[in-house]
């Protein structure tokens, strides 16, 4: 859908950690203080709150109570890895309707063991997948990667080029957990996890939080002179659900892309923040968006420089593969990196021409198919 008067105003983050047992509310507080400091907003200016996490049984209204927010709008935004884009879309709907003018979209993960967390597997995965000793999402994406390699001749080196380029992008990103250079040989030599998926195809779970401020254009103009507009956004949920022989190497992103590119020209995107739980998922999304034919993702990757200095910059801060995955905050990382680039604040990994970014989110792997949710948005810097 075409958006006219909704803007991104700022973002806040915590450090990421593989060990910290900081509470989830503690993580939230750090990210919120960061965004309030950066934007000059007061807590009382915020009249909408969205919360995304799997690390607490408390839903958004209860989190709002604990953090002391009196609100006109509240949302529990759980769409798996698509939650970042999904929360932005829903907040934009509400802002356009006039329910609120400043929304704080919050997400985080914590290893605090004093709180019951990590929800049960959903029904189909509990009863018909986990019983076989599967290896979590790593195994389910491995099935898809094997099909892509088998059907289209995609090579490990082509998949690995995505991980290697993203690591290059992470080297100057202080938030990234992995900032050591990674070579193709390092990628190929990394330990097998679920063939053909290896260690450097997988994200590192970590603790941390992210937040985004979305506002009406009117409010945004009072708050910042770096106006970043939400241009368009779309999503597809349970693509091919009724197809018992689904095409596993095509995501719902194909249909999302058709909607997005009916509003924006494919060629006008300067940078790509593409949800990267696995490099193969990035490759498939590039195909789904029509930057090359289905199956030609490997050749596309060969022909382009995916680093922040390149002609097709992807996951310019390192993505989840190099930064880490703070649970469902993983999908917020891509929105925030897009915003950071468009605001010209990506020191050490800034894309030279950064006016328009495509940001995506994909969520969970379904029984026998591929993704549950696929969503995307385009943001644009206007003078």
């Amino acid at each position, binding site marked *: 859908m075409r958006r006219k008067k909704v803007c991104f105003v700022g973002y806040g983050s915590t450090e990421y950690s593989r060990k910290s047992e900081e509470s989830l509310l503690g993580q939230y507080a750090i990210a919120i203080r960061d965004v309030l400091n950066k934007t000059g907003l007061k807590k009382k200016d915020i009249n909408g709150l969205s919360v995304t996490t799997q690390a607490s049984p408390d839903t958004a209204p209860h989190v709002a109570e604990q953090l002391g927010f009196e609100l006109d709008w509240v949302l529990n935004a759980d769409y798996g890895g698509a939650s970042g884009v999904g929360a932005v879309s829903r907040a934009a709907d509400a802002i356009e309707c006039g329910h609120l003018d400043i929304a704080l979209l919050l997400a985080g993960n914590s290893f605090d063991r004093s709180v019951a967390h990590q929800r049960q597997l959903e029904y189909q995965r509990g009863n*018909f997948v986990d019983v076989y000793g*599967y*290896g979590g999402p790593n195994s389910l994406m491995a099935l898809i990667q094997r099909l892509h390699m088998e059907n289209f001749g995609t090579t490990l080196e082509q998949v690995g080029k995505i991980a290697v380029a993203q690591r290059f992008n992470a080297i100057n990103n202080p938030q990234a957990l992995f900032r050591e250079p990674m070579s193709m040989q390092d990628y190929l030599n990394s330990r097998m996890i*679920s063939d053909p998926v290896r260690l450097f195809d997988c994200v590192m779970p970590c603790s941390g939080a992210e937040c985004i401020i979305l506002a009406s254009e009117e409010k945004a103009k009072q708050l910042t002179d770096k106006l970043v507009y939400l241009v368009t956004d779309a999503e597809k949920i349970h693509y091919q659900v*009724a197809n018992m022989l689904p095409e596993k190497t095509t995501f719902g992103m194909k249909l999302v892309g058709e909607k997005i590119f009916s509003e924006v020209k494919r060629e006008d995107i300067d940078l790509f923040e593409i949800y990267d739980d696995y490099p193969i998922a990035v490759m498939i999304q590039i195909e789904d968006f029509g930057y090359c034919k289905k199956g030609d993702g490997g050749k596309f990757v060969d022909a382009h420089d995916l680093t922040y200095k390149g002609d097709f910059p992807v996951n310019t801060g390192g993505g989840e593969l190099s930064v880490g995955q703070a649970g469902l905050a993983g999908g917020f990382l891509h929105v925030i990196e897009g915003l950071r680039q468009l605001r010209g604040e990506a020191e050490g990994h800034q894309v030279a021409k950064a006016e328009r970014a495509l940001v995506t989110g994909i969520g969970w792997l379904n029984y*026998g198919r591929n993704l549950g949710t696929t969503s995307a948005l385009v943001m644009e810097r206007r003078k």
Partner: protein
Amino acid sequence: MAEARAPQKSLPKINPVDRPFWEGAKNNKFLLQKCNSCGKVQFFPRIACVDCFGEVSWIEAKGTGKIHSFTLVRVPRNPAFKEEAPIYYINVILDEGVIIESRLLGDNKEKVKMGDRVKVRYEQTHNPDIKLPCFELA
């Protein structure tokens, strides 16, 4: 305390919708749902036809099919499966035309290739009332 107990292999939490499937498996039958209205065959078990929302009945599958994709799980999610790693986790296209998720067993499983024919084999779990349909190369 949950922490003190040795990990147990995962078992289905059988519910009214999928009970006929698990009853079937116990009797060495692989049951699929078929829509009474449009005839669509589906799996996993659902409350209604995933396509037209019609009511569904159960049919017996032949228990044969072919490998659609596979992976060797080196790190099972549930540590109780660790001893058996690598687990040959598979997608099978049943001859009835549905993709199912399962596990490949048998001495020759290392030879598996895409498209290989497979047939079902029922594995007794640690619960005497639950058998798990797995596959072996045909």
